[in-house]
């Protein structure tokens, strides 16, 4: 099953290639892979993080900057830690927010233990369905991405349609994947990112 899932690095390369002036928030394993790619002033590498809070951070940015597209690259473990944020997001319903869940079914950087939503940790052996979770929490634009080809074909749609948008990307864990490293001191990066976010406002 794992070998049928998208390679995480490739899935992020596809997003990176499609991205223009969107804000991209990465965290945990997505941050590790994203920092291997050429940086952009509107990248926010959320490392160090409070695990699970990337979705909420993105919500705040989306509300403050309604003319900017905000893309959150969340993990499945992170999503489970803050499931309520799915409801908070749809309550505010920012049209410019895209929440992508890169689901590898494990806590990768702690050694690959299965999350409580993964089939290997569930009594009935069936993984939970993040798309159904998202719909139940009020998302109306919900996409399930199961291959690089499909992601290549749909990434532009997810980055452009009226949100909030939820994308469930089924990816494979990176064996022995290391923890993400912060690309620099948090306070300094926050200030420079804020300056980039607040400057050169895009047209409505």
């Amino acid at each position: 099953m794992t070998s049928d899932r998208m390679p995480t690095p490739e899935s992020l390369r596809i997003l990176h290639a499609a991205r223009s002036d969107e804000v991209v928030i990465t965290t945990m394993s997505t941050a590790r892979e994203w920092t291997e790619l050429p940086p952009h002033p509107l990248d926010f590498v959320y490392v160090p993080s409070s695990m699970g809070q990337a979705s909420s951070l993105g919500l705040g940015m989306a509300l403050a900057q309604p003319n900017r597209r905000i893309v959150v690259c969340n993990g499945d473990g992170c999503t489970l830690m803050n499931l309520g944020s799915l409801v908070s997001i749809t309550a505010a319903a920012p049209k410019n927010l895209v929440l992508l869940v890169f689901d590898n079914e494990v806590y990768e950087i702690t050694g690959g233990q299965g999350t409580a939503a993964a089939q290997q940790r569930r009594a009935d052996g069936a993984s939970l369905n993040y798309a159904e979770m998202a719909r139940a929490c009020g998302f109306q634009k919900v996409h399930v991405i199961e291959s690089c080809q499909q992601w290549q074909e749909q990434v532009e749609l997810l980055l452009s349609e009226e949100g909030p948008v939820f994308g469930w990307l089924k990816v494979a864990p990176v064996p022995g994947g290391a923890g993400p490293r912060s690309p620099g001191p948090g306070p300094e990066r926050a200030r420079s990112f804020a300056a980039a976010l607040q400057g050169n406002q895009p047209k409505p």
Partner: protein
Amino acid sequence: MGKLVQTDEHHIYQDKEIVSLLEEIGITHVVWVPDSTLGLWETALVSSPAIELVSVCREGEAWAVAAGLHLGGSKPLVIIQCTGLFESGDALRNVLHDYQLPLYGLIGYRSYLNSESLPGDSCLLFTEPVLKAWNVESRFIDSVEKKHLFKEHYLQCQQEDRAGVTLLAEGRA
């Protein structure tokens, strides 16, 4: 079921009063999980043309949402109860200390003014020590005579680009 009305003398701020104050100091967004004291402000908050009320499901979200709002140029205020302070510790740690964002919180101090309403409420044991442990400068309002402290401290923190909290004594659970 009708809405709660603010008739208890243990409410230090009246609803329209606090919202007017928030407008005066430039708050653009209130990010909250209401309690039975702070929740009485809802109608006034929703009615404010200057303030957007953002509801979250758990208090940890509030700090992260406020962080995103701040980074985007808005002026957020986190409003939660002390129980939410306890719950949201890791989120608070991250945005106030890892990123040193100058966020501000107004935190309701449950049972402080009428501890008989919840005998043995452990909030009375833990609220002040936990706030101190998180190393956030704070002001404590436990009477109407101290109401000025919130605005003064908020503006001082904003001017000095640092985080802060006002602890607001409450008279009910």
